[in-house]
């Protein structure tokens, strides 16, 4: 089998850490990666700046316990949507892993995205791979201190900006910036900015590939979603071996060598410091840097590209590939069904809630006209984005009357309105001592905003 599992006898899991100096790779996959990383960083830093009808477009408003998502306002009782979103995210990860392998790790994981950003800064300040290695080995000198100081200052500044942006998802960014510059930042806002900055600085500046190797649960269980048709980054030993250096323009067959010239560039560009030629390894985040590096060498040697490339176990073995296979179809079906359910549910969500609480102090009382009267407290929650006037009525007993001191029921957008109403009925119309009644609440001029809530009406019982 050409694509073999790496030998795991010498478990690298707990070895002392050696700093990795990835060489920069350039090529079509590197460009794709940069594009993906810039897009994702852009989304992260720009999102809190977006406005939507006089408020931040995406905001977890903790004091108000609301989550704004453009036109949609979610309340704590909509937590189910958030849970559904998380499940969807998990399922998509399954689906894309089965189909494309660890494409998430290589192109979209925040750990990768920020590590690449920090590596880019490091490269700009400290120079290329060999310069960085030389600098770290060099004895302490004024220029080394200056370079390191500059790097860390820039890293920390970027981290602080990242932390600030993170908190801006919870506190409106205008308010946060204003508080920051006037020195009125709350202690907890300060704490979270620093906490998130420190985490970014540590993860992207220092821990890097170790997060993937020691901390990432996905790296450990992703192999369970793999099959022989999953896209992987692999070296083709049947073409490359035996490896060895040779003069440019040599025909490898003449000297008894494979196509691999053993230049080690694939190892040098690897951000996790592995040798892809040893086979499929769990450390491989499928960033495809080795593909670009090898393709460049193959071009120089005038050999065909693809000694290291995206392949599947089946195609490497020369067997047919299957894109549509049971695993993919099952993941896709579940994903589509859940997506459909979520969207339908959200689109049919009624932005109105009614809570009916019967007065617990008195069961009932008799009015001067001889009617039985029950008192209820109603809590109306207008979850819509505009204020509404509502009409309220009740039924369940013949001749049931609803009496309210409030002539008009107007509830502002996103507000909870509490009002006390009385229901009056003739006891001769009551079948039992306790009868179910229904409160109907409907927005005037927005008839789809209607809700029915049940309550009980208590009387003295049939005489």
């Amino acid at each position: 089998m050409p694509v073999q599992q790496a030998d795991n006898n010498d478990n690298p899991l707990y070895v002392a850490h050696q700093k990795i100096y990835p060489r920069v790779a350039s090529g079509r996959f590197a460009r794709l990666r940069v594009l993906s990383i810039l897009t994702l960083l852009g989304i992260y830093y720009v999102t809190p700046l977006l406005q939507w009808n006089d408020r931040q477009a995406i905001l977890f408003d903790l004091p108000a316990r609301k989550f704004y998502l453009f036109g949609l306002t979610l309340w704590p009782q909509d937590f189910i949507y958030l849970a559904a979103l998380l499940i969807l995210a998990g399922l998509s990860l399954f689906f894309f892993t089965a189909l494309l392998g660890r494409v998430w790790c290589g192109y979209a994981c925040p750990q990768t995205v920020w590590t690449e950003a920090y590596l880019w800064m490091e490269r700009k300040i400290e120079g290329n791979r060999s310069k960085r290695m030389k600098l770290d080995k060099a004895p302490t000198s004024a220029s080394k201190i200056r370079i390191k100081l500059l790097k860390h200052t820039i890293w920390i500044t970027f981290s602080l900006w990242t932390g600030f942006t993170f908190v801006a998802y919870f506190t409106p960014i205008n308010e946060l910036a204003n508080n920051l510059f006037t020195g009125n930042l709350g202690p907890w806002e300060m704490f979270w900015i620093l906490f998130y900055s420190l985490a970014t600085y540590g993860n992207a500046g220092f821990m890097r590939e170790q997060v993937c190797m020691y901390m990432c649960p996905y790296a450990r269980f992703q192999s369970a979603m793999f099959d022989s048709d999953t896209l992987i980054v692999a070296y083709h030993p049947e073409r490359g071996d035996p490896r060895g250096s040779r003069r440019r323009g040599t025909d490898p067959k003449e000297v008894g060598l494979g196509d691999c010239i053993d230049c080690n560039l694939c190892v040098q560009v690897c951000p996790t410091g592995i040798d892809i030629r040893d086979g499929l390894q769990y450390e491989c985040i499928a960033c495809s840097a080795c593909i670009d590096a090898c393709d460049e060498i193959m071009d120089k040697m005038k050999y065909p590209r693809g000694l290291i490339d995206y392949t599947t176990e089946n195609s490497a073995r020369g067997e047919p590939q299957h894109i549509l296979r049971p695993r993919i179809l099952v993941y896709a079906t579940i994903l589509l069904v859940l997506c459909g359910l979520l969207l339908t549910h959200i689109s049919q969500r009624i932005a109105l809630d009614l809570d009916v609480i019967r007065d617990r102090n008195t069961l009932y009382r008799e009015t001067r006209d001889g009617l039985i009267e029950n008192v209820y407290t109603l809590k109306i929650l207008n979850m819509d984005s505009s204020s509404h006037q509502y009409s309220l009525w009740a039924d369940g007993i013949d001749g049931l009357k609803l009496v309210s001191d409030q002539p008009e029921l107007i509830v502002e957008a996103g507000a909870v309105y509490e009002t006390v109403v009385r229901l009056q009925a003739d006891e001769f119309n009551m079948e039992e001592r306790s009868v179910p009644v229904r409160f109907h609440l409907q927005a005037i001029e927005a008839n789809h905003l209607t809700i029915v809530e049940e309550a009980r009406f208590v009387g003295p019982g049939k005489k």
Partner: protein
Amino acid sequence: MEALTPDKIPRAQQVISILWPSFICAIVASGIFFSAFNPKELIPFNLDIDISPLAAYSIGFLLFWILAIVSSMGTLYFTISNCRVLRKQGN
């Protein structure tokens, strides 16, 4: 080669293996807990505690984190001490 046992994991990785899973658990726990309960309504006996929502959520999160840290520490402690006991018994 001598078998690698949990007690030989470097200290830094032990610390991370405690802090990180508990951090994730704390996020999930606070998410569920605070969706169900408004911290404003949790202050008992009408005590006059003036606490900002962000502070309440933060303290809640940190408490969940500490709780999960203690649990993870227990797991790691028993794993490591069991390794030592088993080794002493000659397994």
